[in-house]
């Protein structure tokens, strides 16, 4: 098979004041024509840097120290700027991660797409437009003839990414690069985009490179996989070889850490201990040795051999060949090669039947959208939207409740309302049987010692000008708690969340996502709360690290009997740590019950869609259909009947007129659907 792009021995460094960061070291792999290659790795692995190197769009402090990138017969690294410009867009094009920021907000799609075709003087404007409309049609945009004259802000997130794909394919490129194409999207949209890419792949004769940290996406979409770690390629192979017979310990560990692959619901997740090495320092031996469970003395000193049959199937590891060859490696798939965290969860100290810690009943939160005058002028009687609608929920001590929903479902608003950060219109919130809804801050403040919140963005939720030490002891200062030795207290909390003590002197921007998350946990724990509301506790964390954070939270729960309300869109993750799940859609809870039961046997079609929406990290179990279409409607356009009716594959006439009430299947499992799936 022809090689379209051949990366040979590519090394690249970034010049920073800390020294030269060797971001890529001797990368070699071919990209064959007509194939889809997945580059998978965690943050800092250099996977995106490869894309920018191919396009010649590296940051100004980057320097290629060796190697070549052969595109057909040209070396892209040796091309002049004008030569590169001729290749970019025309022969190689890109789908970006975030369609919000990669499209021009002040130009219509028609105009943006004309501009992409600027090198086609032979094409008339009408031809260009027809071509653009065809492409929009191809990516599944309904009514492209009129929508093409709209601006990006008229499009919803999923539509925008579709338009992004259309723009990338407009010139008929030979090579399509996709940089985390679904990371900014919700699960149900992710499934749709994956499906679209699969269709386009078979329809158009394009070679695709997908860069992602999402193993499920790679498994569903790719023919070949390149596994990267800390700037090196550690393993390359066909997708089935990588997922069914991984040879490198890192590939193996990465697969084991993916919560979507873990069938058994346990409270602990496997983790890869340690951090990615500092690439500004010289590296000897195997790059993965510091985190590898099978590391031998030789791994720290000698570079591992490249073991494999061809350029497109190899792994770099001492275990596979040479004097340290271990014929037992790799072990059978059911053997776990990575630890499940440091300690085993102790039996719960607090019984579950002690009554409710938090109880939310029929809570409503509304947001004003316009003032009385403009509403009167436009003749609108409803001046608000319902962000949270009749929500009832409870958390008992020592229990974990997962609140799952896509963006716009109101789950974060609900969390903030419970903590009295957002006012509620009506309903009730009780904490230890005290009504706390809309309580004056002066009365609420003492309660904040018992209820803590972890925010979504681990770094962004830390005050940027404060040292970690100051941040950790902040709650103690706020509540004026008598603490004779704040330094000792800061260290105690750092130890509690397993945060290395030298980091106490650092600032938030100097921390990795996992470290910043630990600081967030330490702050939440500083006052020894009874309830923690965690908003996306694993957002922005790598697979290998998210297990560590969740195990830590489970340990702390087991010891202190904390109640958790975990707000997330990531169903496979919460499934393992939750006792109960509540599924939220457009501000309402549509299904609520024991986690296992909901996951195995969902009653509401939306729950089913969420469960199926997660791509399966197994190339043999690719989905052939998309379970739900469309996107979450705007709160301004709440459907008349069931909220889910616009997307529900089982919708019937009754659903369009009446709102389904909550009905019980078992005493602790209820749903809001007229035609439940069970």
């Amino acid at each position: 098979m022809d090689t379209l792009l051949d990366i040979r021995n590519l090394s690249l460094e970034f010049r920073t004041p800390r020294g030269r960061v060797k971001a890529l070291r001797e990368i070699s792999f071919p990209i064959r024509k007509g194939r889809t290659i997945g580059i998978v790795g965690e943050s800092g692995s250099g996977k995106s840097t490869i894309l920018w190197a191919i396009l010649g769009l590296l940051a100004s402090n980057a320097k290629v120290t060796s190697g070549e990138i052969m595109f057909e017969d040209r070396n892209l690294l040796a091309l002049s700027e004008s030569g590169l410009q001729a290749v970019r867009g025309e022969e190689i094009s890109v789908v970006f991660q975030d369609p919000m920021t990669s499209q021009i907000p002040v130009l219509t799609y028609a105009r943006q797409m004309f501009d992409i075709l600027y090198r086609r003087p032979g094409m008339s404007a009408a031809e260009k437009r027809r071509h653009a409309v065809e492409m929009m049609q191809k990516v599944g945009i309904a009514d492209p003839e009129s929508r093409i004259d709209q601006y990006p802000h008229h499009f919803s997130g999923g539509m925008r990414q579709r338009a992004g794909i259309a723009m990338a394919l407009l010139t008929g490129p030979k090579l399509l690069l996709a940089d985390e194409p679904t990371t900014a999207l919700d699960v149900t949209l992710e499934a749709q985009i994956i499906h679209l890419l699969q269709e386009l792949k078979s329809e158009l004769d394009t070679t695709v490179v997908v860069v992602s940290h999402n193993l499920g996406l790679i498994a569903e979409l790719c023919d070949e996989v390149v596994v990267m770690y800390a700037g090196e390629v550690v393993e390359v192979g066909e997708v089935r070889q990588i997922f069914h017979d991984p040879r490198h310990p890192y590939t193996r560990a990465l697969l084991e850490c993916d919560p979507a692959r873990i069938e058994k619901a346990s409270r602990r997740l496997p983790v890869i201990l340690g951090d990615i090495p500092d690439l500004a320092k010289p590296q000897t031996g195997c790059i993965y040795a510091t985190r590898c469970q099978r590391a031998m003395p030789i791994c720290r000193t000698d570079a591992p051999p490249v073991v494999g049959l061809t350029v497109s199937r190899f792994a770099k590891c001492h275990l596979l060949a040479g004097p340290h060859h271990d014929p037992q490696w790799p072990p059978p798939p059911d053997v776990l090669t990575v630890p499940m965290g440091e300690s085993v969860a102790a039996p719960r100290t607090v019984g579950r039947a002690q009554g409710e810690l938090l109880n939310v009943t029929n809570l409503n939160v509304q947001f004003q959208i316009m003032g009385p005058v403009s509403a009167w002028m436009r003749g609108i009687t409803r001046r608000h939207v319902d962000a949270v609608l009749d929500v009832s929920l409870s958390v008992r001590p020592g229990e974990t409740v997962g609140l799952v929903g896509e963006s716009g479902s109101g789950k974060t608003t609900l969390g903030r309302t419970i903590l009295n950060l957002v006012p509620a219109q009506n309903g009730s919130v009780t904490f230890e049987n005290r009504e706390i809804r809309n309580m004056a801050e002066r009365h609420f403040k003492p309660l904040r010692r018992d209820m803590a919140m972890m925010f979504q963005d681990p770094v962004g939720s830390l005050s940027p000008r404060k040292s970690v030490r100051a941040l950790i002891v902040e709650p103690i200062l706020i509540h004026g708690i008598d603490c004779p030795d704040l330094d000792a207290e800061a260290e105690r909390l750092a130890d509690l969340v397993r945060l290395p003590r030298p980091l106490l002197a650092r600032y938030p921007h100097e921390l990795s996502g996992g470290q910043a998350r630990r600081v967030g946990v330490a702050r939440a724990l500083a006052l020894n709360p009874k309830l923690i509301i965690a908003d996306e506790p694993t957002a922005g964390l790598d697979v290998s690290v998210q297990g560590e954070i969740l195990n830590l939270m489970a340990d702390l729960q087991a010891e202190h009997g904390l109640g958790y309300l975990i707000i997330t869109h990531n169903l496979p993750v919460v499934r393992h740590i939750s006792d109960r799940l509540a599924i939220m859609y457009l501000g309402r809870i549509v299904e609520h019950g024991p986690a296992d039961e909901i996951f195995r046997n969902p009653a509401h079609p939306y729950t089913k869609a969420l469960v199926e929406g997660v791509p399966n990290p197994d190339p043999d179990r690719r989905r052939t259909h998309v379970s739900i279409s469309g996107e979450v409607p705007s709160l301004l356009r709440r459907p008349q009947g069931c909220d889910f009716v616009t997307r529900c594959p089982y919708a019937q006439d009754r659903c369009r007129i009446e709102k389904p009430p909550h009905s019980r299947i078992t005493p602790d499992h209820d749903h809001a659907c007229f035609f439940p799936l069970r």
Partner: protein
Amino acid sequence: MSVNRSDLNSTLPAGTAGGEPLHVTVADVRESASQERRDKLRSFLTNWQGVTGLALVLLFFASAIFAPWLAPYDPNALDIPARMSGPSWDHIAGTDQLGRDTFSRILYGGRVALKIAGIGVSVALVIGLVLGMIAGYGPRWLDNLLLLLFDTVRSFPTIVLALATVALTGPSLELVLIIVIVTSIPGYARVARTATMSLINTDFILAERSLGASTTRILAHHVMPNVAGPLLILAAMDVPVVVTVEAGLSFLGLGVLPPTASWGTILNEGYLVIRDTPWMVVAGGIPLILTTLGFTFLGEALRDVFDPRMRKGG
């Protein structure tokens, strides 16, 4: 705190966490904090802008404070025969139309500039910062009220405001100071307000609220450090503006009265005689330029050093 030490030990992992050893003492942390301060100082001292700025600002302060000792002549001593002379060994910056030594007048003029710029800018900065943060963080009606106030003040031309006030009080240095403060506050307040508004919906402010931090604490500890940076730059660049406002008012007879020397009066008098001698304008302009540069460099260097996000590398 009911989490006791034995709890702690049971959660402590054996060996290492995050790849770094846990055997670190308080002393190590303090050591690294003082290392941090040394790093800040070093990064400031290796920044040419910072060093130049600091040197110029120190020169400004020193020359103003020690003017009586440094000045070779009395700033008001007349030497009619040597009037409007160029630079010479006797008068290194020349003399003015009354034969007064320009160099001495510059040194004494620096005292006026220091008083007006130093006091005026810093008072305006503090009031503007506080009002701006309140407007940005407080309820909508308060924001609107303060904005109305700022716009009202800004809509007055400085000179008209000065004329009106002089009619009531008569011209004086204090009056110039008050006018400078009142007219500068809206500028700082608006910048502080916008910066505050961009912060109030960030996760970290919400996180502080969820911990129970009071509004005062949030503003003083978490908002102010993040909005003060741009204000300091603004203040540094405002110093020369204030000096020129003083000059303008003095020129109109609304500020510093003759024979008191100020850079503004030197420039204005020099402007009147520029056909006869350029030296007064040159001599009056140079300190203004150096002071402007000095404060600007200093402001930018301070921002680079004290904003941890601007520091490069880890």
